[in-house]
């Protein structure tokens, strides 16, 4: 099991000035695992994601991705090492076409970062992969629309597609179903289940039904500290978790 760790967080702490956001977070995510992070608002879930993905550096502690330290590295390096994230607030290229949004990720994976002397239309592998991804997130009929014109749930699907476009090994999804109707949530969860097959998934999510049905393991973050980690059954049965967070909802 230990060799199968993909992501390993050790003693992670983060403060902004005198405000302590995270304290002593220890978290291990195994290969191929679907891991949820739950917790009340302000518990530090988004900050944790920002630390892992390179948005901020932790005040102390280390983050290992496949045994390599990534704490404090810039986002683009972490992404190239195989970890990609989505954003809670949709973070797409509004004026570019849906296809272009995806192709930019595929291009990055193919190392076309400073490619000034090739025609983008002639990159067969890149274009085919982008088309395939477009189909996987079921936005074929929106291919040439500006991404900003899509409906909210379509944009959320695109957000996930863009996260997948760099073909990451580890995927971080930050509240993928936030602000969605039940129907849309169902659609997106099916999509996530399908497209993350064989990958490691770390997801922040508020909808408990989603968390319990989608994930293998759950970590509960409360006031910047990790209260418990375990299978859905263990978490459901955990008294401290019930008191601190779940309350009546699950009991």
């Amino acid at each position, binding site marked *: 099991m230990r060799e199968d760790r993909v992501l390993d967080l050790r003693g992670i702490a983060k403060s902004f000035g005198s405000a302590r956001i995270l304290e002593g977070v220890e978290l291990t995510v195994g290969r191929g695992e679907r891991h949820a992070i739950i917790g009340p608002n302000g518990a530090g879930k988004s900050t944790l994601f920002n630390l892992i*993905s390179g948005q901020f550096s932790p005040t102390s502690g280390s983050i290992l991705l496949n045994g390599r330290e990534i704490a404090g590295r*810039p*986002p*683009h390096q972490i*992404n*190239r090492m195989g970890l*990609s*994230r989505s*954003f809670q607030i949709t*973070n*797409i*290229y*509004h*004026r*570019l076409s849906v296809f*272009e949004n995806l*192709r*930019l*990720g595929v*291009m*990055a*994976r193919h190392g*076309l*970062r*400073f*490619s*000034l*002397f*090739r*025609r*983008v*239309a002639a*990159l067969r592998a*890149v274009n085919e992969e982008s088309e395939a991804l477009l189909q996987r997130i079921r936005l074929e*009929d*929106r291919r040439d*629309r500006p991404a900003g*014109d899509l409906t909210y749930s379509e944009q959320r699907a695109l957000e996930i597609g*863009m996260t997948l*476009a*760099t073909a990451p090994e580890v995927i971080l999804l930050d509240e993928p179903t936030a602000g969605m109707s039940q129907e849309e949530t169902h659609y997106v969860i099916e999509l996530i289940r399908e497209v993350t097959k064989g990958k490691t998934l770390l997801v922040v999510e508020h909808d408990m039904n989603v968390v319990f049905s989608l994930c293998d393991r759950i970590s509960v973050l409360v006031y910047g500290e990790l209260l418990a980690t375990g299978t859905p059954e263990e978490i459901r049965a955990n008294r401290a978790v019930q008191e601190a967070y779940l309350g009546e909802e699950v009991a």
Partner: protein
Amino acid sequence: MARVWQLLLFVLIMAVLIGLPPLLGAGLQNAMTNMLIAALFAMAFNLLMGQGGMLSFGHAAFYGVGAFAVMHLMTAIDRGGLSFPTPLLPLAGAAAGLLVGLVTGWFATLRSGVYFALVTLALAEMLHSLAPHWEGLFGGEAGISSMRMPWGGFIFGQVIEIYYLTLIWVTLSIGLLYAYTRTPFGRLTLALRDNEERVRFMGYDAHATKMIVFAVSATFAGIAGGLLAVSNEQANYELFGTHVSAQVVLHTFVGGSTVFFGPAIGAAIFTLFAYLVSDVSRSWLLYQGVIFVLVMLYAPLGIGGVVMLHLRHWASIPWQRMVGPYAGATAATLLMAIGTVMVVEFLEALFSPHYVAQRRQAETSWPAFERFGASWEPFGILTWGPPLLLLIVGLLILLRLRHRIVALWDEVQETAETAARSGV
């Protein structure tokens, strides 16, 4: 179909650019050379601004550096007998632009938005205040002048020769800038404009990317500056002036930064405008400013943007009902323009030193003044009445027509949205 039209338009424009100048005098030939140079400068600027989303207020730096590099090369050829083909002189401008662009771009692109703009502004100002004191590099206040050497059977003594040389360079450069948009990096440039954060989280080094966009833009600005030096055979520190940096911003916005050829259109029109109007009126800068403000207020997408809007919705525009209001609006705008010009020119005449002197000599305290080949009473109803009437009538017509035009465009917009929803 659209392709065919584009090709036809391109052929037509090239035919005019190639065929027209020999029929013109040297003055207009020179003006056309300057139009081409301004067009390239604006296109280079817009690579950074329109495509990369980085508004530079100091692009004069690269324009000027390109010009000085060419002057030094020209001097070396002239004095030292260095053999270098004259038509390739602008390469020195490109090299200087690239080099300075890389170095300064590294710093400037550390910041975004307003801070980026301020860094670029400071950069150009630094050169502007340094150049007059640096005799060796910038020739002090007088600047550097030299002579173009004949090469390969071309004398390069006539304006028309320089015009064609410029045309070749500008066409080639704009062609390269167009090709740039078709490369993976060109696509990445657009992504950078839309959302720099996401670019970073997709595995791109945003800073390095911005630096290269900056350097490419500076390279083409350097070519434009180099062409100016080839044409003028001289360069001085004024090339680094704020007005040069401001001019290119103005050209780009009036032409339309969201359309590829927009900046070239804006630059060409304004350069021609300056050439034609500056001879006739001292107030030409004011007119230019008024046009800029009006475009920003009522057509923020610029000339190119307005044209594109019409082309995109060509089929769904109810032209039969649109032609009337458009013609009326054009006529009303013309009336207002005449009214404005009369008022401005009258005021200019009244405040001119010439008129002040006239007043001192005259027996009456407010003698009549001369304008448009006629004599006008400073307080006469016939002086101020007609222009004010033109302004008011024009304004009333415009206000009325605006409703109708807006309503018609709402219809067009609705058709487009319905089409979009049905997923066509």
